Each structure stands twice: as C-alpha cells, then as structure tokens.
C-alpha cells in the first residue's frame, strides 16, 4: 500500500492508521445494514405488515445512530488520538511483515503537520483494507477510509435517508410498487455509503455506478408513463457519458499517481503532493474527472438529466437528486483534491476549468429556475445552481467552504423538496401556476418550513446557507476591496462576480417560487390528469389540506437543521473565544473535517472572513429577493386583484414588451437548446443517420465483397442442405413425430401466481448456488 515506506523512505509523512476506536474501524457496518435491508425487502417485503418499509427504516435508523456515534468517535479521535510512538519526534512504523494482515500502520507527526493543522493533534485518517482480487501484482482492494469528510457524509446520508424513509411511508403509501420503492431506497442508501467510505478509486467507481443504477430505477419508478421512463433513460445515459471521463481519469491516475501499482486514494494523493507525478497526466486526469463531475453533479453542459429526473417520486428527488447522489461528484473532487489542486494549478491562479464550469452552472441554472412553472423543476435547477457553487468553490481552492456548502445544502434542499412534495400531495400537481397559489392558508405548517428552507437557500443571515455561501465567496479571493483576499488560494475575480450574481438570482427565484405556491389566490381544485401518479387518492375534491405527521415531522427537523447547521463553522472572531481554542465555537467544521496537515491533503490557504463582504453579499441577496418581491407580491398581486384574472392569464411583464428580453426568455424556456442538441442532434444522429450509415456499410459494402462467393455458396449450400435434409437425416428419423416433451409441459403448468415467492426462491437459489461455488473453490 505504501511502497515508498517499504522502500524505507522515512522522510515521508503518512497520516493514516488502522488503530482507532471500534466504531471508526467498523464504519462499513453503516453501509452494510441497508444492503441487508435491501435483500430482506426483496425476499420478505411483501409479506410484512408494513410491506417492507420496516426493514428499511430499522436498518437506516441503526445506521444513523452508528453514524452519529462514529461522528462522536471521530471528534474524539481527531482531538486525542496518539500512538505510543506519536510524540515529539517523527516516527514511522514500517510494516515488517509480521504486522496485522494487509494493513499497514503508518503514523508520523511532523511539526509541519501540526503547524499546518493549527491544532494540537495531527489529522489521522483511519483506513481498513482487505484484498478483493489481485491481478499481475496489482491489488484490487476493498476498504474503508474514515476521516472528517467521510464521517460528515455518513451523517448526512443516513439522516436524510431516514427522514425520507419516514416521509415516504405516507407519501407513496398505497403505491402499486411500494415494496419495490423501499427496496431501492435501501439499495441506494447502501451504495451511497459504500461510495462515501471508499478508500480506493476503483471502489469509488463501483459505488458511483451503483448509485447511478438506483437513480435510474427510482426515476423510472412509474415506468408505465413514457416521460418517466425517458427521464430515467436520459439520466442513465448522460451519466454514462461522464463515466467515460471517470474511467479514463481514474485509470490515468492509477498509472500516473498510483504508479501502476495501487488504486489507494491516500497513496495517490500523497504521491501527487510529494511531486514526481507527471503534470500532463494530472491535467488529463483532472479534466476527465471534471467531465464525470459535470454529469453526476449536474454541471453545465451535462446537467440536463437532473431536471428531468424530477419525474421520480419526490422523496427520491430529495434524497438522491438534491442531498446525496448528485453531490457524489463534489465528494469525489474533495477526496482527490490534490489531483485538481496540482492538475489545475488552483493555487495562485485566477481561472481554471472546474471553477469556471461551476461558475457558469451556478448562474446559468439560476436563470433557468426563473422560467419554470413546475415547483420541483425550480428546485432542480436550484440544485444544479448550488452544485455549481460547490464545484466553483473546489475549483478556487475553497475546499472547506465547498464541503460545508454541501453539508448545509443537503438539509435545506431536502427540506424544500419534501415541502414541495407536501404541497403536491395535497393538490396532486407540481404546477405552481395552474394548481397552486394561496397554499399558506391550507398548509400553514408546510408554508413555514418552506419559507425557512427558502431563506436558508437564499443565504440570509443567520440561516445555514448564509454561512456556507459567504465562506465560498470570501475564499474566491476576488476583489480585495471587500477584504477577504487574505490567504485565499487565488484571486478568482470572475468567479466571485458570478457567485454574487448567483446569490441575487437564488434569492429572487425562491421569492417567486414562494409567491406562486403559497401566496395569491388558490388556482387549483381541478385535480385530474396532472396528478402525480400514485395510487392513493384521498378522495378529497374540496380544498387541499395540511399533510400528516409523517410528512410534517421530517420537515420540522430539516427546518431546524436549515436554521442551525450554519453555526457549525462560525468564522473566527464571532461569539466568544479565539480560533485556537479547541473548546471554542469557531470553525469547528473546519477543524474536524478538513484534513489540513495530513499527508494526503494540500496546504490550502484560508481567507480571512470579511464583514464587508458578508454585508454586501447579504445586500445583494436581499436586493434579488426585493426585486422579485416587488414584482410578484406587489405588482402582480395587485394586477391580479384588479383584473380578477388568474396569474396564468397575466402578461409576462418585460418579456412581452422588449425584444431582447423576449429572446432571452425564449432561450431560457428552451433550456439553452441543450436538450435539442442532445436528443435531436447527437442521440438522434447516432440512432439515425450514423447507425443507418454503419448498417448500410455492413449490409452493402462488407457483405457485398463476399457477395458473389456468398450467393454461390447459398445455392450450393441449399443443394447440400436439401439433399441431406430430405435424403439422410430427415428420412432416418421421419417416424419420430412431433416434439412434445411431457415433462416440460408438466413443469410449465406448476407455475403459480405467487410472483414474490417465486422471485424470492429463484434469487435465493442463485445465492445458495453461488455460495456453494465459492466454498468449493475457496477450500
């Protein structure tokens, strides 16, 4: 795992251990439990009183508790972990072959590490690895890597998953594929946790693909309708485009940074940071991996699948397409940060591919969110936009800010999605203009939680989004006039400006969304074919009403988090105590999460927080919200009251009077024509002219060359065939009569209707056979 250590290179510092708290060493249990739940639901789900939901909820609850305990254990580990050899002098334990199995224990505490970390203890990740297979001297391992980043994600994934499980018992209650739904929720949760815990890049690829398949299955949950099925297909295929980037990028890393020997994430990161890895290879790897991020984390121009993915059930949108799976790309960049840090020369620069993709995405998607009438699509574009913030933050070197934004965003965006689901559950539609409006009268509780989520997303003080967004902006190092350029990695002025514009846009489109959904007059009441297709119809044809507790409590919890989680990383100088004080409140997130000073993380500078910037950014957001507020809450509202017209019938303001605005509006409504390009031109071209041309070549040119020979052959062949057919074979067995295999027929008739039993027995049979096979060969 650490060839350089085996070679006796003592000077290198590796901050990883396999000796730690039991919880940290066994974090794989957290991922295993939902996997067990998946199998149980598959086999026994339909027979259970709650149709399999109990397995999922139990497993994820235990995982959640374990994740919390693991988090606590990590905090303790981060602050207090020492080995006997750990102390004043740097020490390296080299595995002498008598150590414990495949794990190498290496711990070195350089004073440099302490200085960079700024804390008393070095940052020591916990790694447990076991060999999966071996080929040509290369080990393909499976393992877990537990550090602040993975612990944080464990918490986010298990918590949101648990809330979504509870929410779903009501939301998809009575659905025709209820059990199937919970099975895939479990499988997704397990896959995501598996991905998060990966200690090597190959395992990351595996987890990455598995979450993609779960996403495919869940987007297409109601596959009877073609749009849903199409959306699922689109998501899978767009992600496959990114997968090529992922595969090529990871293989490049394997050869260049893993030295053709290892997939181990830490080793790869260390090798890059120690230098000696070809810069060209890193540029290629970083660019390829950025393409993977573009598809998985919905960055321009591969984001188009994400809004379509809203065809899936809303809890799925909250869990997969807002809080967890779509941040897999961000997480991957964070994990392999040295690749980007060195490959894109983030430090001391002012522009790079990743940051620019993020910046363009955050503004481009923010604009698109304006023209959506479907509440989930507003939120979807908002997610794309916020993911743009995260990608941009990583691109400008604001690692902690990006990860922190990932953390806060998970809560408020899940809150918003589940809130939109709560409304849709009541009106059986996602169309804000046609079927919503005035919902605050019917659903006051949902309204409050939705507004909290919106404020947090808009980044208004003191809610969660404010802190994380502010941290991103300050770390772009743009415009020293607002302070904050301090020791930020670079001076990314363009990205700073885009971030500011994004802040205004976010506040504005959320104001519009809140108005259209909750204010004005109720425009629904004709729920029919717009209804999201779940089997339960509550039979109410009167006014919509507030959702039940299984929907509301997750919303309350997420709202509380939307308010509070921002305080996890208070900037220094805020409240009491000094930054260095371990017991203080400041930068706790940074302290526990960022692997500063560890051997696998670059020395990233941090900008000093700036009051000025915080104030200006807040003003920008308020201005955005204010403009939208003036337009919708004041102007449109009055107009609607005066004319007595529904909002749908109202003129669209400037877009009808100004040609340029109209053109812009058209561009937005058509989503920059990207879908047209992909489905119409590229996919259509491949399926149509290109495939046809290839097939034509096949049939005419390739086959044509052997045509003469072929035709003669057919003639003579037919002769032979008929001769032998008639003369020899058929004649000899002519009397054998028609085939009717009585046994086969009998077996066919035994088939019974119990599909579930049947599938269960079948897969159980496969499992038993598989076990027997492995046992036979393993002996």
């Amino acid at each position, binding site marked *: 795992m650490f*060839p350089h250590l*085996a*070679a006796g290179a003592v000077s290198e510092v590796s901050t990883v251990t396999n000796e730690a708290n039991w919880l940290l060493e066994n974090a794989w249990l957290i991922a295993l439990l939902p996997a067990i739940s998946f199998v149980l639901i598959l086999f026994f789900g339909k027979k259970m009183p709650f149709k399999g939901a109990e397995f999922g909820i139990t497993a994820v609850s235990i995982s959640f508790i374990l994740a919390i305990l693991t988090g606590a254990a990590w905090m303790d580990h981060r602050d207090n972990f020492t080995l006997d050899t750990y102390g004043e002098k740097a020490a390296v334990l080299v595995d002498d072959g008598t150590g414990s*199995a495949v794990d190498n224990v290496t711990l070195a505490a350089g004073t440099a590490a302490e200085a960079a970390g700024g804390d008393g203890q070095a940052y020591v990740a916990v790694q447990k690895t076991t*060999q*999966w*297979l071996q*080929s*040509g001297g*290369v*080990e393909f391992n499976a393992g877990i890597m537990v550090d602040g980043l993975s612990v944080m994600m464990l918490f986010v994934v298990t918590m949101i998953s648990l809330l979504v499980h509870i929410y779903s018992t009501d939301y998809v209650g009575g659905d025709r594929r209820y059990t199937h739904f919970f099975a895939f929720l479990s499988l997704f949760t397990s896959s995501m946790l598996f991905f998060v815990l990966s200690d090597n890049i190959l395992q990351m*690829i595996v987890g990455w*693909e*598995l979450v993609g398949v779960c996403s495919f299955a869940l987007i*297409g949950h109601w596959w*009877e309708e*073609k749009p849903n099925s199409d959306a699922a*297909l689109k998501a899978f*295929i767009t992600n496959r485009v990114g997968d*090529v980037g992922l*595969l090529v990028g990871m*293989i490049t890393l*394997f*050869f*260049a940074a893993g*030295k053709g020997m290892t997939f181990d994430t830490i080793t790869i990161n260390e090798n890059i940071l120690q230098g000696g890895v*070809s810069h060209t290879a890193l540029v290629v790897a970083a660019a390829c991996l950025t393409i993977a991020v573009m598809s998985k984390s919905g960055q321009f121009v591969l984001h188009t699948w994400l809004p379509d993915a809203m065809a899936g059930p809303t809890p799925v949108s909250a869990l997969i397409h807002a809080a967890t799976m779509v941040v897999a790309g961000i997480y991957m960049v964070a994990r392999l940060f040295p690749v980007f840090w060195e490959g894109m020369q983030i430090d001391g620069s002012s522009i790079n591919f990743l940051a620019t993709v993020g910046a363009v995405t955050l503004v481009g998607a923010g604009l698109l969110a304006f023209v959506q009438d479907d509440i989930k699509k507003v939120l979807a574009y908002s997610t794309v936009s916020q993911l743009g913030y995260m990608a941009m933050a990583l691109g400008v070197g604001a690692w902690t800010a990006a990860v922190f934004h990932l953390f806060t965003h998970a809560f408020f965006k899940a809150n918003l999605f589940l809130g939109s689901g709560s409304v849709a559950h009541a009106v059986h539609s996602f169309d804000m203009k046609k079927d919503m409006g005035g919902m605050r009268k019917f659903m006051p509780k949902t309204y409050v939680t939705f507004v909290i989520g919106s404020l947090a997303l808009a980044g208004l003080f003191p809610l969660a989004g404010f802190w994380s967004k502010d941290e991103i902006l300050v770390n772009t190092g743009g415009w020293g006039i607002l302070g904050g350029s301090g020791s930020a990695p670079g001076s990314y002025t363009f990205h700073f400006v885009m971030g500011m514009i994004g802040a205004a846009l976010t506040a504005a489109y959320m104001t519009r969304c809140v108005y259209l959904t909750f204010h004005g007059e109720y425009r629904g009441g004709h729920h029919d074919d717009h209804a999201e297709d779940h089997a339960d119809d509550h039979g109410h044809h009167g006014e919509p009403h507030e959702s039940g507790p299984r929907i509301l409590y997750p919303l309350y919890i997420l709202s509380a988090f939307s308010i509070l989680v921002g305080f996890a990383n208070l900037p220094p100088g805020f409240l009491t105590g000094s930054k260095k004080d371990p017991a203080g409140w400041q930068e706790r997130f940074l302290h526990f999460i960022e692997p500063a000073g560890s051997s696998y993380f670059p020395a990233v500078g941090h900008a000093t927080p700036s009051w000025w910037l915080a104030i200006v950014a807040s003003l920008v957001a308020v201005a955005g919200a204010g403009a939208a507020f003036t337009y919708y809450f004041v102007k449109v509202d009055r107009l609607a009251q005066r004319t007595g017209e529904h909002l749908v019938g109202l003129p669209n303001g400037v877009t009808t009077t100004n040609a340029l605005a109209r053109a812009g509006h058209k561009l937005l409504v058509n989503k920059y024509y990207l879908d047209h390009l992909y489905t119409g031109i590229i996919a259509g071209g*491949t399926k149509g002219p290109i*495939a046809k041309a*290839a*097939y034509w070549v096949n049939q005419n040119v390739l086959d044509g060359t052997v045509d003469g020979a*072929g035709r003669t*052959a*057919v003639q003579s*062949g*037919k002769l032979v*065939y008929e001769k032998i*057919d008639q003369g020899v074979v*058929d004649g000899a067995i002519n009397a*054998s009569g028609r*085939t*009717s*295999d*009585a046994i*086969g027929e009998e077996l*066919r008739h*035994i*088939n019974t209707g119990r*599909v579930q039993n*049947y599938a269960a027995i*079948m897969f159980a*049979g*496969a499992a038993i*056979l*598989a076990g027997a*096979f*492995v046992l*036979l*060969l*393993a002996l």
Partner: protein
Amino acid sequence: MSSLLAASSADVPFPILSALVVTPFLGALLMLVLPNGRPEYFKQVAFLVSGAVAGMTAWVMVEFDKHTADEFQFVDSAEWIAGLGISWTLGLDGISLWLVVLTAALFPLTILAIEAEHTPKAYYAWLLLLEAGVMGVFLALDLFAFFVFFEIVLVPMYFLIGQWGHGARAYAATKFFVYTMFGSAFMLVGILATAFLTAAETGNAVSFDLVYLAEEQALATTTARWIFLSFAVAFAVKVPLFPVHTWLPDAHTNAPTAGSVILAGVMLKLGTYGLLRFGIYLFPEASVYFAPALVALGTIGIIYGAIAATMQKDLKRLVAYSSVAHLGFIVIGTFALNTEGLSGGLLQMVNHGISTGALFLLVGWIYDRRHTRLIAELGGLQKPAPVFAAVFMVVMLSSVGLPGLNGFVGEFLALLGAFAAHRWWAIVAATGVVIAALYLLWAYQRVFHGPAEGDNAEMKDLTWSEGAIMVPFLAAIFVMGLYPAPVLERMEPAVDALIEHIEGNVEDFDEADADQGEDLDVDDLKDLGKKKDSKATDESALVEGGAG
C-alpha cells in the same frame, strides 16, 4: 515440458479429459439408436449425457490445482497417427479451465431450456456432437486434433441453424459455414506449414504437438508472421472481428434459441481462445508485431458493433450485434499482452458466455410467448411479467458492465491492460461503454416499460422451470461480480506463464508498456514494482492464512 506432461498425467489414473470429449460423442451415437416411439426420451438422455459431462467437469474444476495452473493438468496423451507425428493429446490449464467449465454448464442448461421444435432425435444428437467438438477444441494440445475439432464444430451448428432455425435459415447457415470454412482453409495451411517447416528447421521428426512447437520457436520471423496471419484470419472470422463479422447477426437471428445460446456462449470463444493458445503461444513475436492492428480492429468492433446494435429493430439481432462489441473488448484485452489485459479478456470470454447466453435464452422465451422479436411490437412487458423483467434487467446490466455484476471486472481489467499498452485505443474503447448502455437500456425501455397492450398484456411470466434454469446464470453473474478471485486465481498463473513465454521469445518486449508515454512514468517504477510484488505475496499469504 514433456517431462512435466508425463508427471502430470501420471497423477490421473482415469483419462478424464478424454471422457469429457468422448461422452457427448457417445451420447450422440446413442441418440441415433434410441427408439423413435418415445420422443421424450431424447431430451432426457441428452440432458443426462450433458449432465454427466457437467458432473465430471465439476470434479475437474474442484481437483484442478490452482498452484500449478500454468501447467497442463490431467494430461492425457496417446499416439494417433504416429507416422505424421499426430497425437491425441488433451490437457487443461488455467486458460482453458473456465471455458471448459462454461461449456459443460451451458449445454445441459440449454438442453433443458429449449424444446426441439421438431425431430428431437437429430436435434439432440447434433447438440451432443457439438458439445464433443467444443470440448475437444478447448482441450486439444495437438494442432491437428485441434483442427479436426474446430471443423467438427461447424457441422452440427450448420444443421442446427439450417434445420431448426427461422426465417432465412438456409442462407444464414450457409453463410456461417462458408465464412468459417474460408478461414479454416488458411488455418490448415498454417498448421501444416508450422509443423513441416519446424521439422525442416530443426531436423527433428514432424510433430503437431503444441507445446513442442511453441517451445521450439524454430521458424524465421517473417515466416512466423505469415503463418500467424493465416491463423489470425481463421480466428478473426470466428470471433468475429470487424470486418468479417457479418455472418454473425444472420446466424444468430435465424438460429434456434439453443443455437444462439451455444453460438454466443461458447463458439465465439473458439476464436478468441484460438488467438490466445495458437496465435500468441505459437507465434509470440508475430503477436507482438500484429498486436496494434488487432487492438485497432477490436476497438473498431466495439464502437461499430455498438452503433449497429442501437438501430436494430429485432431484439435478437440487437443482442447479436452487442456480441460484436463485447468480443472487441476481449480482443483488446488479449492483445494488450499484459497480465491485466489477458486476464480481463479471458474473464470476459466467460462473462460474455454467461450474460449473452442468458440474454439469448430470455429473448428466445419472449419469442416463444409472443411469436415476435420486433421491439416495436413489444412493450410494457414488465407489467404482466415482473419476474421475467427483473431477471432480464439483471442479465442486461451484467452485459452493460455494471459493477457488482460479472461484466465489470473483466471489462475493467481489459481496459486497464489496454490502457497500459495502447492508450488511445483504450480511451476510444471506453466510449463503447456509453453506447452499450444506450442500446441495451433503450431496448429494455421499449420492451418492458410503458403501457402493455394487446397480447403484451397477457404475456406469461417466467415459469418455475425457466426460473430454475436462470438460477445458475444469476449465481454466476453475482459470484463473478462480487468475488471473482477464485476464478482469477486459477487463470493468472497460466496468463503469467504465457507472458513469460512472450518475454522469453521476443526481444525488447516489455509487458507493462508496449507504447507507454514518458509522462506516465512507469519505467522508473520497476523497482517499486518488484518490492510491491514481494509485499503482495506476503500479504496474500497472510490473507490466506487468515481465511484458512
């Protein structure tokens, strides 16, 4: 090597490998003398015979010594035509083991799964003869015997397609036959040339013994290259490689389901296995010389096959084109000529047999029920047949190469190997991964999703017996996806021995980097690699200790 053969064969009192070839042959003969009065006997006897072969193969698989997987085990040698140096020599090493296992498993399942549409006597007799031939090809260690088996295989398949097929079956059968014979003619010349020229160069008696010829390496470089080409043509047709693949879609589409399963499952591997065993082993220098061309053809096959598959209207034809793409991965892995690539290619041969075999069975069952394979006429099948859909989905995802299922490991290893050797081709090949998802999932969507109308709404779900047949396929898909180590362990010694063989016979051959760029820094890592290797051994020993 000959002393080694003697030593190995002494351990086996019973000529088990000969039994693997002879049993189905005798079964075919038995079929001919069975009374016609009870047609159901034919299927039962055929199943019993192929089951017996499977049983013996299971024994061989368990008894196979993985520590000496680089040597031929259970060797069984007898003089055949002594005057010409032709012998009946059968042997099994890590390269052939899994292909033999695959063959032995696929035949009884296919016999069980598909009813003969008519004249069961001949149908099962041909199937058993086919099994004998395929076993012979994978086991033969004598060039002449190999050629005989390679040709024997053609005959039953010709009749299976021609007599029990659908549509333009006579055309398809003949096309198949002519194409393959065309290649075989070259191979026969190549085989004779190899044996006689080696005898002329060395002054020894003529021998067709594979190991002798390979170890001798008596031919001049240019001669060897020409002879390699003659073999390559024969095998390229069989694989099939672009541009000699056009027989495949026709053969598959018109073949009966059993024919398609066997054709895709094992017969295409005769080509890739031949390239490994007779191309690379006999002519290492020529293989290195021609590797870039073969990798290029393989890559073209991947992209081309995938693109052609997207536009197919017939489900079976679509799966057939997907085979062209998958076999491309096997070829680029193989001709990466490094451990990962070769193991990946070999593993992918087995994987493709499992996944595509199962896909053809499933498509065949759809045809049995709906009497159409046109995608446009199917739709919404998931509603009336959820289990069928679930199984189809799993098999399809394994074919797409989803991690956790069998297709991924082989594909990834092949890509990794190809990347080390021919980076740009590997990158192009990686895009084939996208298109594979496109055509398979798109087909799945059109066939299984959407509303089920008309006959589609009535489609019968998988029956118990069909489900039981799918169980071994699913088991293999999951085992080889989640825990491929037992399979790989048994392959790799043989693969490594093959690479050593190349290294020993080709000057300047360097496994890791056929055309490695300087920026990947592999060269200066040799030392690290060595240390790594010794370490890996220590660790695996420890792991094994722990497991024991």
